[in-house]
């Protein structure tokens, strides 16, 4: 996993609430056995018409979305299926962080496992970001703050272990493997 320290980017706003992972990456694209290449089908059914042409009014098809690394999403982003293909698709498109007031549990976990930063902000900040799409914001993992264009700093929750993994680009599997003695002891006591 690559280290994530700071993200500075324009935002893209997708205000719909309860955006499920079937929208982020529809099931028909899940037959791949690799993690790569899901970006082109990110939000496929909202992004392309029946003939496969980009719909010009969908936000990700607009010129200002190109190169943006921060997605501001409506409340309860990522509900539904546990498919990790959702964060893989968002990252493959170029997103490095998702900002919302609330994340579905499995989606949030899947994001963190891949270094896609889930940023939970208060409703006021969220409403402002949705109302002002395309602004440049910066996110600092070390201090767990999001900085708005006027310099306002907003703290977001990120537990110590997840923060350590992001800052150092290490994944959790190494940590789990290092717990082998404790795991073996547990197994012996629970036969």
């Amino acid at each position, binding site marked *: 996993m690559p280290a994530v320290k700071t993200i500075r980017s324009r935002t893209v706003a997708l205000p719909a609430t309860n955006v499920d992972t*079937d929208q982020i990456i*529809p099931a028909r694209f899940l037959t791949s056995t690799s993690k790569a290449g899901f970006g082109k089908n990110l939000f496929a059914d909202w992004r392309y018409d029946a003939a496969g042409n980009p719909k010009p009014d969908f936000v990700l098809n607009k010129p200002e979305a190109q190169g943006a690394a921060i997605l501001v999403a409506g409340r309860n982003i990522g509900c539904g299926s546990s498919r990790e293909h959702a964060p893989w698709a968002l990252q493959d498109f170029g997103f490095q962080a998702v900002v919302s007031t609330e994340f579905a549990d*499995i989606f949030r976990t899947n994001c963190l496992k891949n270094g896609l930063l889930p940023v939970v902000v208060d409703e006021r900040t969220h409403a402002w970001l949705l109302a002002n799409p395309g602004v440049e914001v910066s996110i600092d993992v070390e201090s767990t703050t999001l900085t708005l264009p006027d310099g306002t700093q907003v703290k977001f929750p990120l537990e110590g272990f997840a923060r350590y993994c992001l800052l150092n680009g290490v994944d959790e*599997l190494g940590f789990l493997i290092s717990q082998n003695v404790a795991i073996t002891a547990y197994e012996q006591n629970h036969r």
Partner: protein
Amino acid sequence: MSKTMFEKVWDDHVVVPETADTPAVLFIDLHLTHEVTTPQAYTELRARGLKLRRPDLTLATMDHSTPTRTEQVFGGVPIAVDSAAKQVRQLEINAQEFGVELFNLTDSRRGIVHIIGPELGITQPGKTIVCGDSHTSTHGAFGALAFGIGTTEVGHVLATQCLLQRRPKTFAINVNGRLAPGVTAKDLILAIIGKIGVSGGTGHVLEFRGPAIEAMSMDERMTICNMSIEAGARAGMIAPDATTFEYLAATPRAPKGAEWDAAVARWSKLPTDAGAVFDRSVDIDASVLVPMVTYGTHPGMVAPITGAVPMQGDAVFEKALAYMGLKAGEPIGNVPVNNVFVGSCTNGRLSDLRSAARVLRGHKLAQGVKMLVVPGSQAVKRAAEAEGLHQVFLDAGAEWRESGCSMCLGMNGDLVPSGHYSISTSNRNFEGRQGQGARTLLASPETAAASAIRGRVTDPREFTN
């Protein structure tokens, strides 16, 4: 100290306790796997030179992308979706290389992962159970702590049999009274989701409690727990009792003899202690419920079948109604039905097929209606055929298929055409879930069958009561 059932199961599986900075290391008793969410995990294990730690606690099946047409399952005709065929082959390769017990495409024990765990009797009270699938919550019906995980976590469990987890909060769903005749477990869970909302359970493990739950069969309890995730919950649980033990006693892999007696003694201590405190609770009166049908694009957009599409104003609500081609104020019973799907991990068990057949017997599908009946497992298929249920469906004009997830998510090519209304016994009515442009109405098997006969959403009590 008094504990909830969740706390007992959690505490029993903590390998390393959580701290302010680090999550707990939690031991996993059963890892169920399938073809769609595992290939990248095995790639990771190979890249790191890691082995499967506990083959004895791991089981693989094929369900999501597999065909349901007999000729594609049992040979003669290749699997129609080429990438799905490759994914199925990749699971065979991975299971062979890492030593995982696999029920392959033609295995008589194959089925939807959440149907076969209970059927085998490996889903047991007090276990921690995970799978790379959000409907793993189904297994909580036995008093297990069961939840869906992503592919990276699948890799963690394959390699270490453990997960890093923060302890969720607890949420009691107290279901008082009894369901009226013709009102099912599916109607109850849809009503619960409608009440608490699709993110109402986020961060929590639900415990379904009360007389209506205690009166339910295991199949019904599985339908309830299955859709916990549709309320955003980490998991759903129901206390094990005599109904649970009776079900498990008849399964091939449950403990036998003295081990059975010891297991029942252990399982009997799992129910939540008197005086234990839940972080949240809600009360539901089961006795006032009627059959429920969704009208929108998430399972919380649900109304009584006797009611109407609600009037609401916001843009997201309007967008959902536009997708569904419905208007606020329109009676639910007016909605046309083109397509009927009976199956899935929510309602693909034998009792569900019996319920649908009871309504459908002696009737024909309405003109223009297509109906697909997909048993949840090959064992369910055999049992249904032994009772002649398949003949009821075939006589009505429905198709009878091999087991799998099928039209619940349409990965295998079993799709609802764009713009068509599909009344479905599955769990998600998201946009495009059953096919691009498909309009899904979630309902019970009884309601699906009654609607198939009339060609519009129909209260099954017209046929059963």
